[in-house]
């Protein structure tokens, strides 16, 4: 699959004042990840870990402190948040907001809300053409046509959520970012909207980034999941594998704490206070203090996010990478090579390919006396 979006060393720090002193709040702290074309990625983590900040960096409604975001190979980090309104990329990345009530204009009917997006972001012109686009989108999200001329206060929570989704998909984006799309809804409505999103995911050729602190949502909808803690990704991998066999102590704790989960109590976070996102200690694991496995080393050395096995990464001193990762890291060190994360991931793919070839070679049983020999004697 080809990469649609790539974040490279992405950082956002907010200047804050604490006890009268200027400090920096590390909301997003050096993220590296990618979203492939057609892929649905989940982003989970507790309140305040930086999910919405990351979303705002990706949708370019907030300027990053440093790092890059590439969309379809093109750097978009340099487009200032202010300039984004007029940029063609604005159509390609669409947002669905958490609270449908807040995000809808109370003086617009559903039809006007959806039509406005078509008018602002696409080349479709003429009342009839725009209206037919609106009706197609309404049908896609299961919004009955007779509701299109109602105002938000005349719609239920679930219907308003559908209007919010229709407004985003009507412009045919390549990436749809949903920040807690069901958090504001009644539990009964949540399920229906999740079903709708699941259907859209299968019907539309789009990539999705689902932001949620609800693991079940992510488990249901996502191909891949990224777990965030205090501004950093602590684990990522295929959703099914991560839920079946979480690697990082924080992911294990999240899963153990699910209601009705069959998690192990020993995995739950311990009582200590969470560390502050303000000027955090760079030489200490962010989870230390709450981590049931925390040890001496975790106070003096922050664990890097490393690939543990094919497609799975975690940042914890006690999650042992596979032999192949140990080997590649050692070989890189011996050769004094330092690779940025994207190249490191590409290297793993190529290394796997050579390893597959070597395995094919090894599968042939050769006579014991076989020795390498020069090509031909002339």
């Amino acid at each position, binding site marked *: 699959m080809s990469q649609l979006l790539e974040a490279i060393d992405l950082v956002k720090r907010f200047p804050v004042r604490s006890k009268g002193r200027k400090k920096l709040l590390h909301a997003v702290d050096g993220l590296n990840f990618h979203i492939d074309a057609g892929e649905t990625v989940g982003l989970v983590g507790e309140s305040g870990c930086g999910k919405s900040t990351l979303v705002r960096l990706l949708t370019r409604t907030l300027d990053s402190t440093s790092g890059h975001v590439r969309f379809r190979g093109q750097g978009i980090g340099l487009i200032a948040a202010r300039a984004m309104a007029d940029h063609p990329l604005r159509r390609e990345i669409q947002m669905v907001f958490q609270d449908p009530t807040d995000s809808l204009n109370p003086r617009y009917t559903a039809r006007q809300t959806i039509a406005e997006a078509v008018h602002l972001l696409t080349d479709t012109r003429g009342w009839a053409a725009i209206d037919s686009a609106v009706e197609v989108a309404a049908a896609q999200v299961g919004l009955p046509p007779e509701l299109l001329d109602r105002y938000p206060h005349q719609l239920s929570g679930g219907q308003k959520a559908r209007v919010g989704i229709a407004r985003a998909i009507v412009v045919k984006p390549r990436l749809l970012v949903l920040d807690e799309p069901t958090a504001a809804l009644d539990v009964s409505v949540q399920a229906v909207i999740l079903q709708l999103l699941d259907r859209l995911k299968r019907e539309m050729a789009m990539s999705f980034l689902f932001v949620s602190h609800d693991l079940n949502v992510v488990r249901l909808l996502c191909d891949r999941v990224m777990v965030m803690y205090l501004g950093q990704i602590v684990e990522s991998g295929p959703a099914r594998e991560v839920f079946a066999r979480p690697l990082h102590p924080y992911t294990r704790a999240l899963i153990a704490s699910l209601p009705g989960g069959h998690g192990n109590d020993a995995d739950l976070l311990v009582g200590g206070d969470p560390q502050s996102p303000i000027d955090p200690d760079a030489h200490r694991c962010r989870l230390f203090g709450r981590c049931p496995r925390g040890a001496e080393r975790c106070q003096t050395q922050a664990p890097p996010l490393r690939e543990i096995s094919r497609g799975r990464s975690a940042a914890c001193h006690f999650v042992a990478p596979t032999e192949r990762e140990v080997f590649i890291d050692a070989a890189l060190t011996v050769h004094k090579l330092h690779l940025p994360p994207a190249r490191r991931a590409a290297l793993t793919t*190529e290394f796997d390919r050579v390893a597959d070839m070597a395995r094919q070679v090894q599968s042939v049983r050769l006579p014991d006396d*076989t020795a390498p020999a020069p090509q031909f004697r*002339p």
Partner: protein
Amino acid sequence: MSSLPTTATAIAAAFAGGEVSAREIAAAALERIAAHNPALNAYTEVTAERALAEADALDAARRRGEAAPALAAVPYGVKNLFDVAGMTTLAGARLLAGNPPAAADATLIQRMHSAGGLLTGALNMDALAYGFTTENTHYGATRNPHDPTRTAGGSSGGSGAAVAAGLVPIALGSDTNGSIRVPASLCGVFGLKPTYGRLPRSGSFPFVHGLDHLGPLAASAADLALAYDALQGPDGRDPACAQRVIEPTTDVLTRGLDGLRVARLAGYFDDQAGAAARAASERAARALGSLGDIVLPEVAAARAAAFVITAAEGGALHLQALRDRPDDFEPLSRERLLAGALMPALWVEQAQKLRAWFRRRTLEVFRDVDLLIAPATPVTATLLGQETMVINGRALPTRPSMGLLTQPISFIGLPVAVAPLWPGGAALPIGVQLIAAPWREDVCLRAAWALQSAGVAAVPPAPTSINAR
């Protein structure tokens, strides 16, 4: 102008017979290149002055009554990994663009020059010869003259395209895992990868010492033999060169296949071939009177071993630059080279052992057979940018898989000619490999000539020049 001969054989004869001057031939070739190269991107540099100077020298020699050499007035191009005096040897790589110009011509260019060839320029290739599609991120993709949305093959893609488009009748290329045979197949021209150690590689940019071969691509079987004969001879500078005396093939070319035993390679070579490729190898087998099918043992493992050795040697060659200047590498192959440099030595050792064993087993086949036939590529030319190709229902990554059928053969150094077929009158060609025992290039070339005389293999008039008229 349209009355000028187009094959090397005809050009050399016309010049020798005094019907045409070398300058006229050179000027016409340069004109074709100027007209068609912008659409093809086959040339990375055109050496117009040199071609004209070489032509003038030939014309002067003829005026003095000197005999015309074998390739007199034949325009040709070279893959840009050959040293050309006064030019930087790029090997398709921006990495090398800052190097000083070469002081002297590569040995094979010196031989082409002595034989009367007119060097028209340097031809595009995959960076560092690592690739089968000539999709070069820094110097642009070379386009297939039969369909500009498709690859010309690689890594000698510029060589294949230049001959197929009729810009020159002969081009030199290199073949480590299939880099002459793949473009010959996808562009529909003849190609020869001689026995490992036959042609000297001195003055060319290496990739994998133990697998690198140089050789010609040409517009006809006779042109191929003519070029090959001019290129032969011992050399003191390439340690792998076998120092054999020249064994001319032009004289025996037309002898037909009398007395030669022919078989078709089945098994792996059918499994990894699409329908068109299988049809081509069956068609060639029928035309050459194949006695039946032969299955070689462990071909998939042999191909895998070639892959391992290539990555290891290529990676080792470029490790220092991978460390110092990673941004100047072709992104399509950079991490593959790096993975090669980092792999355990054990894997390479096992691959080398398998190579010795596979060579021994394959050479046994030549007790009963003189010529083996197999398709040259699994499919006809794929689209530029195409990531996957489907062979018999399996989706495979395009770029490495184009060499599936060539790799096992060059792995053990056997000589191979490629002849272009057009199954069912198709718009896109596909080549067959004509494989012989070590040092029997004559057999490969006789088979190529036989297929061409029977009308089974052909290089049709250049499609670009047709379009232009």
